């Protein structure tokens, strides 16, 4: 480490109490670089809007008519329509006289069902495991944790080849059970690392006091630790839902016509040669975007932890 770092750790900053959660990401002038005025807001607004533009264009496209989407001169001003959203959820619809079918309703149901069940199961099993890893370190605790994380960091293609063969043999391919099992395993490492990072942050004093007063391990876990990490549980669940919802390769290879998820349905829409229904795709994505934007806003403080699978807390 450089001179400046060591000087700082010897300075008063090292003894300062940790910042409250909200300030850790620098949301309240805690960035250490100071304040800036409205001029910076203007600059940031321009950059942010440019950066957000591809997303904005998805949203705009979702409200365009079939013809407006295909306009060679892109239309910034148009009459908004909800047709695309209606078509996402209709079994059959007509485009210029041709009857078409999206099957998106089923894909949405599949995505919601598989994501919810797998995230819930992973959350239950993973929280227990995270508590174990955090409070009762085993011999070789770090090795286990490393293996757990590695299974998540591996390219999906590495895991999917044997799984594909095994599912084919065991008849799990194309079933909801198979994909839920796989997604549970897919979410588990993430859940364990996330929840462990939350448990690690709790103060041990209350737990120790409870133990001295005769509380059992189970009681300490249920009555003291768990209530303190409810926000963490929520963040983990939401990130798990987003990750699972977005997952493509597993779903593509292991889901059948009846079990395909939204990303698979979207990819299939692109594959066709009758011309891509961009409006429909945009509407599908917009439906997903709204919750994501809300979540990004609500979980700003946990975002860093979420995207690094709990390996970096702040």
């Amino acid at each position: 480490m450089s001179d400046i770092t060591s000087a700082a750790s010897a300075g008063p900053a090292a003894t300062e109490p940790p910042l409250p959660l909200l300030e850790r990401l620098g949301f309240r002038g805690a960035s250490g670089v100071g304040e800036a005025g409205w001029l910076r807001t203007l600059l940031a607004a321009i950059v942010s809007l440019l950066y957000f533009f591809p997303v904005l264009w998805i949203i705009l496209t979702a409200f365009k008519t079939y013809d407006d989407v295909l306009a060679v001169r892109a239309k910034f001003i148009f009459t908004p329509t909800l047709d695309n959203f209606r078509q996402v959820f209709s079994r059959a619809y007509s485009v210029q006289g041709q009857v078409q079918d999206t099957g998106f309703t089923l894909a949405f149901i599949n995505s919601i069902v598989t994501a919810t069940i797998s995230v819930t199961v992973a959350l239950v099993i993973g929280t227990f495991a995270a508590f174990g890893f955090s409070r009762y370190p085993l011999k070789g605790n770090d090795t286990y944790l490393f293996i757990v994380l590695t299974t998540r960091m591996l390219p999906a293609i590495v895991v999917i080849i044997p799984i594909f063969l095994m599912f084919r043999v065991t008849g799990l391919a194309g079933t909801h059970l198979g994909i839920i099992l796989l997604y549970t395993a897919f979410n588990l490492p993430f859940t364990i690392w996330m929840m462990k990072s939350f448990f690690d942050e709790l103060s041990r004093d209350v737990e120790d006091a409870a133990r001295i007063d005769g509380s059992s391990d189970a009681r300490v876990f249920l009555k003291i630790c768990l209530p303190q990490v409810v926000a963490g549980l929520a963040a983990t669940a939401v990130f798990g839902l987003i990750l699972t919802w977005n997952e493509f390769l597993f779903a593509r290879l292991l889901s059948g016509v009846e079990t395909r998820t939204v990303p698979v349905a979207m990819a299939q829409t692109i594959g066709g040669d009758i011309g891509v229904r961009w409006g429909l795709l945009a509407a599908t994505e917009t439906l997903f975007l709204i919750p994501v934007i809300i979540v990004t806003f609500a979980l700003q403080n946990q975002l860093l932890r979420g995207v690094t699978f709990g390996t970096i807390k702040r």
Partner: protein
Amino acid sequence: MAYQSPTGGTTTPESPSPADPRPRAELLRWNNWRGALVLFLAGMPLAVTLLPPAASFWVAGAFAVLLAATLVVNAWGRHPGGLLVAPALALLFVMNIYPLLWSFGLSFFNYRANRMRPPVFVGLENYAKVVADPVVWDRLHTTAIMVVLTVSVQMVVGFLLAMLFAKQFPLRRYLLILVLTPMMLSFVAVGAFFRYYYEPSLGLLSQFVRLFTGESYVLMQSAWGARAGIIAADAWMWSPFVMLLVLAGLVSVPKYLYEAAAIDRAPAWRQMWSITLPYIRGLLLLALLFRTIEAFKLFDVVFLLTEGGPGTSTETIALYVYRVAFQYVKTSESTALTYILLFTVIVLTNIYLYFANRRGREA
């Protein structure tokens, strides 16, 4: 199972007393997890290699259940840690580690999933084939180009974004959302929509170019154009990730250093170089490693955007493995290939965790 025996410290064959610190290992006892582990480690590879795949899955599963059961019995009331992590590890084992071991075994056989012929043992032949294959090296080369370019773009853009958002200013919290959203989108959506933006006739990029040249612009027709297209999409998605890490690093910089520098009239670049950078160096490294691991797996965006084309100029190694496994159906060869990927990722993850843990301890 393990109860306090009435005589105190003595050990009965069926039930060892918990007071005994190291109970003798009796072979057939429900808490003999070491025995079960040996049985498991010996039995599972045997089952995998000797039994047909259908049976081996369930036999190995039975071994795993046995191991789990002995561990539970052994740990009940004594090792809450082991008990708590067991279900998670068991599930991970069944769904991740066991399939990987199985595919490791398969990589020594000649097997094609679309043929009825049973696997034939060929030793290291698959590995020799893969290592000697110029196509594999070409795909690794493509992947390396993409990883280096996309990660550097992400680092630079992410860093600049972080600098923009480093200070507190009105509406900052809301503007940040706009920048952070791409990270939460699905690869499929990003791939699909950049395909739309790059479309020669209706795409925004082509229309923008047409304003100046009057002609449609086909980005995806040249190798470097397609690469640039993929890198732009991937970097757009993941630059906020780097920004997030840099912002987190900036929090740790004490303000008085800047105040002291201002008194010394140090120029802005000097403050950046001597104060900011040393503080965020650790997180920059973590961002670099994390993004490298993720970029190494680059698949979904390429699959949606170019499907590896034009030609094979954007075919990353992950996409190539996908083709070998599911389009050319050279199953066992693809498993050998996956082990090259696996090894790389394990090494990178190890380095990443080393630095992440070091930072965690310092913090």
